[in-house]
């Protein structure tokens, strides 16, 4: 028994030795081919796939665009799990492979970034939706890290406002993924938007606490479909789905119902999901989307690094004031009057005359 253990070790070591022996040659080759000092940009995905039609995809599109515009090499890695160790490992892989600029979307990276900001002082990190801390929520943002937040509540507010104005009367609902801050803020903003429309524009849109649900995952498509079906059956007209893959399930359900002539809607999230909701010709069940411009944030940070203006050590807030959130430029399902009213509210948010709360208060959970 011991013998064959030893043999396995030998095999492993042979690989290791062969690896070391050829190491120099390979690295040299690499340096010859690529330009010295060219920035290489990496990204580590959060739970879910790169083509999740929302968070990961939005970030990656920003990175890709920057790569094209500035001629940079880009690469993303998918961690084996969702623990801090998995994230740190993948970030380490990118840094060791000379990708010294790493974008990490998601609050789950918070403690991982806290770890790597010291471990790799010569690398730069962009953390979206979170700030580095040691597990105690005490922010420690080093010079090589930028932490980016979005005003999801403002984005959700605009989505809720648009939905209420477009429906005039009826009922709206919410499906969240996991009960994490970004999703909660979307939810609370959405409710405020609906209430704002009811108060100021005398729409009659109902919200029922039973229909504001966190499914609990970001990837259970079937569960999203079931939840949405139940809500539509109860008479809900539009659902705000801030839930990754679960939202895709809700969109699928709405598409199936729309195809049979039912008037049901989904308010998209993160990115413009209009194309996702197309069920016939160019007709889509996406009323509008509560967007946060993740791609823009990623792009801007890369550009800042190239320009030498990387805002290291800062916690940035992307909100209406700096065009970090909003609804799509084109909303074929919204009346022009509605779009105009939403634009008005957007301007008020920018001006600070309209303030959306980012805490629950007396709103639904």
């Amino acid at each position, binding site marked *: 028994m011991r013998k*064959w253990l030893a043999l396995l070790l030998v095999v492993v070591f042979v690989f290791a030795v*062969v690896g070391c022996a050829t190491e120099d040659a390979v690295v040299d080759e690499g340096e010859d081919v690529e330009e010295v000092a060219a920035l290489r940009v990496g990204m580590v*995905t959060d739970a879910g796939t790169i083509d999740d039609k929302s968070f990961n995809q939005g970030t990656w599109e920003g990175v890709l665009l920057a790569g094209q515009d500035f001629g940079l090499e880009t690469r993303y890695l998918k961690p084996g799990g969702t623990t801090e160790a998995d994230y740190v490992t993948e970030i380490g*892989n990118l840094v*060791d492979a000379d990708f010294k600029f790493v974008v990490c979307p998601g609050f789950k990276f918070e*403690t991982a970034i806290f770890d790597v900001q010291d471990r790799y002082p010569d690398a730069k990190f962009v953390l979206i939706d979170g700030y580095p801390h040691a597990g105690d*929520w005490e922010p420690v943002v080093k010079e090589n890290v930028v932490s980016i937040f979005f005003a999801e509540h403002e984005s959700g507010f605009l989505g809720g406002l648009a939905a209420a104005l477009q429906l005039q009367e009826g009922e709206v609902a919410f499906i969240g993924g996991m*009960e994490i*801050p970004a999703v909660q803020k979307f939810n609370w903003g959405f409710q405020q938007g609906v209430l704002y429309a009811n108060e100021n524009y005398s729409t009659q849109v109902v919200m029922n606490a039973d229909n504001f649900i966190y499914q609990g995952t970001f990837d259970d498509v079937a569960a999203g479909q079931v939840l949405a079906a139940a809500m539509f059956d109860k008479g809900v007209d539009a659902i705000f789905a801030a839930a990754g893959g679960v939202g895709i399930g809700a969109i699928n359900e709405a598409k199936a119902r729309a195809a049979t002539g039912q008037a049901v809607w989904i308010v998209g999230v993160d990115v413009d999901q209009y194309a996702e909701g197309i069920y016939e010709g160019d007709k889509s069940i996406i009323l509008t989307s509560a967007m946060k411009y993740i791609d823009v944030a990623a792009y801007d940070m890369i550009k800042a690094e190239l320009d030498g203006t990387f805002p290291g050590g800062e916690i940035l807030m992307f909100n209406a004031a700096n065009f970090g959130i909003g609804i799509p430029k084109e909303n074929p399902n919204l009346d022009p009057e509605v779009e105009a009213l939403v634009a008005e509210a957007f301007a008020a948010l920018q001006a600070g005359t309209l303030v959306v709360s980012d805490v629950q208060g007396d709103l639904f959970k």
Partner: protein
Amino acid sequence: MKKKLIVKKNFLMSLFAVILGLIAGAILMFVTGSNPIEGFYYLFRGGLMNIERIGNSLATATPLIFAGLSVAFAFKTGLFNIGGAGQMLIGGLCATAVGLTFDWPKPILLTVIIIAAMIGGALWGALPGLLKARFNVHEVVATIMMNWIAYWTVFYLVPLYLKGPFLETESQRIPMAASLKVSWLTSLFSGSYINLGIFLAIIFVAITAFILERTTLGYELKAVGYNRDAAEAAGIGVNRNIVLSMAVAGALAGLGGATFYVGFASNMQIGVLPSQGFDGIAVALLGANSPWGVFAAALFFGLLHTGKGFMNAMTAIPPEIADTIIATIIYFAATSVLIERNWDKLNKFRLALRLRKSKQESLEDDSGGEQ
């Protein structure tokens, strides 16, 4: 003598399976337009290139060792434990709950954590065992169901009792005193995630081997696994052994959960079934269900998992393809059972060849004589 022979055969077969897996992975790399040699170079380098990465490979392997042991142990009794993931979750939940609740000195706290994890996992394993013994419910079905019961139990209990001030989806961070990570080990491996779990794993590999080879308990369990009817006719309590075997398997997986949640990871997230629970099946298959075989197989898989990201980063192989490559290697490696089946055929073929050859030689001798 025979035993050694079998071990040697098993080892050769596992090695052959691994090589076959690597070849299959190479073909996949080649088909997707990458250089397999380069790919494998970075794959193994990623797992071994410095002391930190070796530590990470060991740390990744640790829960796999336990999950593999769990599957292998149950398999010795003829039971297929698919419930490793659920048992890990419950073991991890117990460990996390103890770790977050009590404020004791590290040695005492860790001991209690380990015991709690074992008890939790054992209960989670014993229940399907009981169902099998009492009502003949197939353990594959029961353990899969238990996985989901564990999943939702964690889903509700963690936010209810163990969450931190902000996040609803994960437990509070495990305090240093309750973590299997120790600073001397972390710094010895220059910041790796390696933790005391690896020592625990080695100890339990040895204990499992000891139980199976040297104790009446192991003798009984294996007897039931090899031939249930004969064991029963000989007066061995088959049902008792089924429950016991599943309980031990569950305890091992539960320990794996502890090493994962309070060792490798630093808190417990809800909504995730640990994939190690399922990888354990492949580990046990590749390790030919022997404890030290499981140990070696888990190290190999740990190496692959750790090296994968570096291969991704250094080559143009996209992560999805890399996952497929790793899965292919594991798949081929784990199908050593099929290779075993063909091994005898191969031997027979060789025998036939030799026979034909000797016949030909004798024929040639005859014709030579005629000339």
